[in-house]
Structures are given as structure tokens and as C-alpha cells.
């Protein structure tokens, strides 16, 4: 694993009018967090349009994203043909990091705009690094949310250290953005809670100095067993 991957974190994009909180449902008896309001219909063949990049890179992205199509999942992921409507539009803007709209929110983006950016995925990106970011972002595109926002995560944040790191370069986030992306936890009273999956591909990288008890998290570069069960339940 490259040292660089340790610093990868993505953001999810909530569109205006997008829903969090009471509409976010955490599925019982499995690990994972998904937004039920933003799931695709089971059986959907997700068509992906690439707005930049060479064909070989596109093929690598699609092949990697298909890791979510574990046995029992009634979805497909394929490149959109010319003229065909795309559910997901991908850019490779290196200056925009990696992010994705959540599930069907992708459809709310104007056709000329990407609904996902893979700023750190290139043809020469090492396999584990490439898989890590592509699978994570496609997890969002399929409706999954960040695992560290799971109410069962109970991460004891050293918020001063997190704020100091994320308010500065290269991110320069304001407090509202940090609170939303990092510290937010779904309201237990409004969701069905379940186990927290520290091995999920959907968790942030959390270095030890970001927590009061020294707990650190490193996301998996591939689907965890819990991720596979989650996607199977959502789309099986």
C-alpha cells in the first residue's frame, strides 16, 4: 500500500434538497450505512459516462467498480453508449479530489456536470490505491454513506486535532464542512441501528492523532464481508 493512499479521503455530495437524518435508514443485522431514499431500483443497469480520460482508464474504472456486483446483487454497471442516458458521469479532475453524489442524487446533476470525480485515479495508480478510491466512490453512487458516520461508530474524536488538520492546506475546509463530513452521526432515534464495520471500504482514513484514545482506521481497498452483505441486502 502506498503511503499516499493513507491520506485519501473523499467527500460525499448532498445535493440541495438532499436528505439526511430521518430519511437515512441503517439496515438492521448487517454492517453498513445506506440511504434508502437514494437507492436505485434493483435490476437497474447503471450506465456510466466518462467526461474525461482515455478508454483504457474507463475500462479499468468499470472493471473495478463491478466489485460491488457480488453474487445475488441485481444491478449492472457498464459504460453508457453514445447517445444513451447516463446515470453516473465521471470526471478525473486532479484538483477536485475524489467525491460522488449519493445514489439517485446523481440524476439531479445537470447533464454537463460530473456526478463523480476520481481525481486520484489514473492508469499508473497502483492497483490497491486505484481499487480503494474507485470502489469507495461507487459505493456512494450506489447509495452507501460513510461508515464513520454510523451511530455505532462511537469514535472519540480529538476534534481540535481534526479541525487543525482539515482547516488547513490542502483542504481548507470550514467548520460546517468538517462537522458534516467527519463528525456527523446519524440520529439513533430515527434510524435502525446495527453493528459498525471498521473494515468497510466506506470508512474514512482516521489517523491515530485524530482520536482521544488513539484508535485509527484505514479503509479496506476491497469490499469487506460486511460491505458485500450490505450491497446484497440492498440490491438482492
Amino acid at each position, binding site marked *: 500500500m502506498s503511503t499516499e493512499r493513507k491520506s485519501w479521503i473523499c467527500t460525499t455530495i448532498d445535493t440541495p434538497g438532499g436528505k439526511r437524518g430521518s430519511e437515512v435508514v441503517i439496515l438492521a443485522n448487517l454492517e453498513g450505512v445506506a440511504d434508502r431514499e437514494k437507492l436505485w431500483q434493483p435490476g437497474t443497469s447503471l450506465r456510466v459516462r466518462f467526461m474525461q480520460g482515455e478508454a483504457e482508464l474507463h475500462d479499468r474504472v468499470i472493471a473495478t467498480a463491478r466489485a460491488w456486483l457480488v453474487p445475488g446483487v441485481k444491478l449492472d454497471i457498464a459504460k453508457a453508449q453514445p447517445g444513451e442516458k447516463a446515470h453516473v458521469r465521471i470526471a478525473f479532475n486532479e484538483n*477536485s479530489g475524489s467525491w460522488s453524489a449519493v445514489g439517485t442524487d446523481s440524476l439531479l446533476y445537470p447533464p454537463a456536470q460530473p456526478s463523480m470525480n476520481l481525481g486520484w485515479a489514473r492508469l499508473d495508480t497502483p492497483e490497491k490505491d486505484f481499487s480503494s478510491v474507485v470502489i469507495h466512490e461507487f459505493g456512494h453512487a450506489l447509495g452507501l454513506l460513510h461508515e464513520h458516520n454510523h451511530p455505532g461508530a462511537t469514535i472519540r474524536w480529538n476534534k481540535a486535532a481534526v479541525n*487543525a488538520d482539515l482547516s488547513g492546506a490542502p483542504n481548507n475546509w470550514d467548520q460546517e464542512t468538517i462537522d458534516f463530513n467527519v*463528525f456527523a452521526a446519524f440520529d439513533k432515534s430515527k434510524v435502525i441501528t446495527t453493528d459498525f464495520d471498521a473494515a468497510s471500504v466506506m470508512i474514512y482514513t482516521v489517523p491515530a492523532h485524530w482520536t482521544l484514545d488513539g484508535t485509527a482506521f484505514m479503509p479496506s481497498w476491497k469490499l469487506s464481508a460486511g460491505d458485500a452483505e450490505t450491497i446484497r441486502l440492498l440490491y438482492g
Partner: protein
Amino acid sequence: MDARWQVDADALDGGGLRIAMQRLAASQWRPGVVLRSWGLAPLYRDGDVLCVPCADDEALWLGAWPEPAGGAGELSLRDPVSGLAAHISVPAQQSITALGGRQPIARPRGLEMHTLQLGLKPRAGASLTISLELMTPAAWSERSDRAWAALPGPPPLPPRLG
């Protein structure tokens, strides 16, 4: 013993505010900038005194945030010897990195021990003042019966975000 504050996981919890002393190499301390944390200073409560170790080659800064979210309050740190003091209003401000804008909050040079006064004034609730005793690591370990470990080095670079 004042029950309005306690130490939990090396953070001070009082009046709806959480306070943790952040360590970094003294050579990395700069006035007037956002400092990174290289790790937490371990805390030990001895009666109503908060004991904090600080090595000669380290500096500390104070980080504070509301816990649970939504709280607010005023924090002050005063050096009764020099008379220097710093104040912040949480959550708009979340760190005290210098006293009087010049000196890092670290063990003052040439002193074995030094006591600062930490003032908490929660938006809801009574004010309290806590003695914060900066100690050599050896003295702190002896008093707390806890091991102290030197900083392993700087933390990884902040994550890149989209």
C-alpha cells in the same frame, strides 16, 4: 474535589466543553498559525489540579470544542507569574496556542514546575477555575504513576479531500 469537571481519555470534560492539550515538537511551534497536533498530552487529575507533562523539546497548545455539539463558552488561560493571559470563545475559536500572543504554552524555560490558571465559563452553567500544572515528564510520571512516552514524530500529512 470539584465534580464539575473530570478527565476522560486524556481530555478535560467540564461545562459542556472538552479540552485536550495537544503536543508537537517545540521546533514546529510558530506564533499566530494553526498548529497541528502530533498527539495528546496525557492528563492526570490530582485533586483539583490538572497535571500535564511537557518535555523540554515539546510545546503544547490547548484545543477545545463543545461536547456534545451545540455547546459554547469562554475559555481563558492565565500565567499568574507573568500576568499573560489568552482568551477564546468556543466554538468560534478552538485553540490557544500562545499566551499574550508570543509565548507558547509549554513548560517555561528554567522552571521545574509551573502552574497556569484555566478558566471555563460555559454559556450555561457556573464558571470554574482549574489549576493546570505543567510538569517535567519525570515528575508527571511519578505523580500519576503512568508512563510517559516521547513523541514518535510528526503525524502523517493531512488527508487530501475532494
